[in-house]
């Protein structure tokens, strides 16, 4: 994990002009429909929003799915940790166990892609890309379940879809996107109190990535806080809470162990799935760093710093970057990066600085006055459960942590930003500005750039 593959290419290409296809922007007209019909249409449109968003995301992803790919010069075309997982799935397709340090479901999904589409970028990435699009839709439904506000749910989904890290992680053949999709499935059913289904999804998420369990921890904490602490009712509340916990623990464990058992018995990898689990836990505990200066830390405290921290600033990690240099008469005219998969934050990440204090204040009110603020608790507990373990890993266990681990935190921040920006009294311009900034950031760091895209970035004086 965490190995960087940076491919640099120097190509000279003639300057080409591309014209925009002459699309005419259609300005929306207001007031030409009956207000009732307009409201109905708006509502229907919002109902369709998750599907539309997911399809747009899917479309964008399919457009660039083949890039990068193997090239005649011998480049394998692997982005970031694809360098681990694609050889692993090839080995698994040949009947050998591989990459046992991670659970197998995400890799099984990648294998499915390879079986259907062949051993090529489409085959490697198709199920990942679909998982990410599904996550975009699921986050809408999760937010809707939590807030009952379609516009808010839409904004949340959009923020997640356009977070650069989320987009990139959900574009390449690594484990995280399916884990997120199953986790969001779990969250959705959890909020609907369909705990058996939720725990099935937990089992599947755990079979993709072990850290999926952290989201459940956040949900359980949220569930506990979702009712006021009243004298004499604590035992009853605790009893209901434990019943939910038991369901997720036992059913989730059974589902995930069954999955591991299928893998282990097929590949004869381990005697029992629990021994496999032990191997994974031991392996991950052993990934400790020696030199703290090589690590980007979750918090801006020593040995991290303000300029080397997940939630302030860190240098973008080049997961796969190609460089094109155009020259004329021996002079470099311009340099740009048609493929630029960066591990980088988006502005949404910084909102953690506001959302956590607000959540803590609400928590204080809960313990002081018994006031329940469900959405705040949901955000705070999700953030705490997915972020704090990394703090422990990095600072206490001295284990390697990577900026893309923040991927699990992002959905909660997206919920938080849209929740606060759509609250009564907050001017609508605020969410418009934030959305615009987010979209611009996404545009700036979109990983595969067309000529037009590059020219726009260059014309704006940005690094293309």
């Amino acid at each position, binding site marked *: 994990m965490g190995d960087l593959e940076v491919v640099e290419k120097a190509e000279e290409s003639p300057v080409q002009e591309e014209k925009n296809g002459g699309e005419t922007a259609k300005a929306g007209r207001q007031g030409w429909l009956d207000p009732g019909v307009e409201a109905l249409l708006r509502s229907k449109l919002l109902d369709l929003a998750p599907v539309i968003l997911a399809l747009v995301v899917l479309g964008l992803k399919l457009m660039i799915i083949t890039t990068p790919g193997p090239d005649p010069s011998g480049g394998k075309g692997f982005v970031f940790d694809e360098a681990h997982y694609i050889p692993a799935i090839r080995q698994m397709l040949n009947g050998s166990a591989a990459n046992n340090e991670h659970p197998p479901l995400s890799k099984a999904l990648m294998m499915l892609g390879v079986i259907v589409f062949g051993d090529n970028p489409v085959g490697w990435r198709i199920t990942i890309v679909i998982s990410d699009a599904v996550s975009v839709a699921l986050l809408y439904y999760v937010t809707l379940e939590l807030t009952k506000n379609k516009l808010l749910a839409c904004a949340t989904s959009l923020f997640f879809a356009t977070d650069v890290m989320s987009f990139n992680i959900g574009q390449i053949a690594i484990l995280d996107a399916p884990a997120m999709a199953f986790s969001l499935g779990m969250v959705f059913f959890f909020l609907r*109190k*369909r*705990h*058996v*289904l939720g725990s099935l999804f937990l089992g599947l998420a755990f079979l993709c990535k072990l850290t999926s369990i952290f989201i459940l921890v956040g949900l359980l904490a949220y569930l506990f806080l979702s009712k006021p602490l009243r004298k004499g009712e604590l*035992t*009853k509340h*605790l*009893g209901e809470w*434990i*019943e939910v*916990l*038991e*369901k997720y*623990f036992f*059913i989730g464990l059974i589902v995930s162990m069954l999955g591991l058992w299928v893998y282990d018995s097929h590949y004869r990898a381990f*005697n*029992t799935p*629990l*021994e496999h*689990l*032990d*191997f994974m*836990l*031991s392996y991950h505990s052993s990934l400790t760093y020696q030199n703290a200066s090589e690590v980007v830390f979750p918090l801006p405290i020593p040995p991290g710093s303000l300029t080397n921290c997940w939630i302030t600033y860190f240098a973008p990690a080049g997961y796969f970057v190609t460089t094109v240099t155009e020259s004329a008469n021996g002079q470099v005219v311009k340099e740009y990066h048609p493929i630029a998969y960066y591990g980088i934050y988006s502005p949404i990440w910084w909102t953690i600085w506001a959302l956590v204090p607000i959540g803590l204040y609400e928590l204080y009110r809960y313990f002081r006055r018994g006031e329940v603020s469900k959405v705040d608790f949901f955000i705070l507990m999700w953030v705490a459960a997915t972020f704090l373990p990394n703090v422990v890993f990095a600072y206490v266990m001295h284990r390697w942590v990577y900026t893309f681990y923040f991927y699990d935190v992002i959905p909660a921040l997206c919920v938080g930003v849209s929740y606060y920006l759509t609250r009564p009294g907050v001017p609508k311009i605020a969410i418009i500005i934030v959305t615009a900034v987010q979209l611009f950031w996404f545009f700036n760091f979109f990983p595969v750039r067309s000529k037009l895209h590059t020219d726009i970035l260059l014309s704006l004086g940005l690094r293309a």
Partner: protein
Amino acid sequence: MLNVSEEGSPGSIDRRGLRAAIGDRTLLEIMIVTTAVVVLSAIVHSSSSQPNIYSDITSFWGRREVAEALIPYVDFVFEYPQLCGLITYASASIGRTPQAYYALMSFFLYLFTMGSAVLTYLIAKRSGFDTSRIYRYFLLAPSMIIYLVYNFDIINTFFVLLALYTFQRGKTRLSAASIGLGVLSKLTPVLLIPIFAQKLKTWRQQLVFVAIAVAIPVLANAPIAAVSFENWWGGYKWHIDWGLENSWLVFLFPDSGSWDTAKLLSDILILLVVARVIVWKNDDLIQKSFAMLGGFLLATYVYTPQMNLMLFPFFVLSSESLLLFYPWELANAFIILSWFTVPTPPGPTAAYTTPQWSALVRALLLLLILAQVTKVRGRTLLNWVTSKW
């Protein structure tokens, strides 16, 4: 039902009851049988008997530090709590010979066994249970012969019973002290603190109860830790480092290299048991204690066969006809009877060996027994799964 009694004058533990009990013919019979059981157990474990059944107590003498009557925890690591160390030290330093040591150890255990039998009888009588169950579910159980003069578990049983009895009589502080003393013979009574405290009405009473139950083991440990931290901590570390023993988990984790995760799973299961029993809507402290200790035995990664002794009184103090008791007990007895038949490697703690198959059967039977005691039926489980899909 065991409830805090409103009656009884402060400072007395049912003196009238005790006086009446002394003249009680049934109790006298129980005491005679108890004496016979302890004597029989002492004989079958004595190294003078040929053949004899293994006993931890006789094996302690093989340790140079015990035979030389050095002070446990101070001069050497002793892996049992302080009351056990005290009895061992007293037996060794007074006895000085293996025979005398063994006789003294047996005598101490006899006292606690007698105390346990009497307390079980008193609680059963007061709570309206059939006192003849003491024979069926306690004194005549195979483990009473095979695992009595074997280890210190009966001491723990005694203090748990004393805690229940005193609690029943309204002497809650004495009850808390009994739990604290129980912890000094085995750590498991710690699990009972929350469910005992739950029965008390005010926060203040609960706080006092917890404080007393915790203070006793802390006060007993603190000076020893201060004098010889290494040897004191060594006893606890010994348990932390110990692997799986007679737990069904060994079939899921046959490779001893994976036992850290097995222990983690065991710890999680124990926490779930504790939480589940705490929130169990049942006012009966005896049933709750049964469920707590039984659930612990199911979840723990070390379920040595002598631990069965801690549950016997609860079988007595039940209105259920617990027919699975004897199969459960036989499976338990078979663990030690087959223990030394397994060559090393793989050793008797390895999965798929006869002792471990016996332990697995024992665990399944205990699960069924606990389901019966807690009235969990198949339908309950189905409801658990299907409610709020």
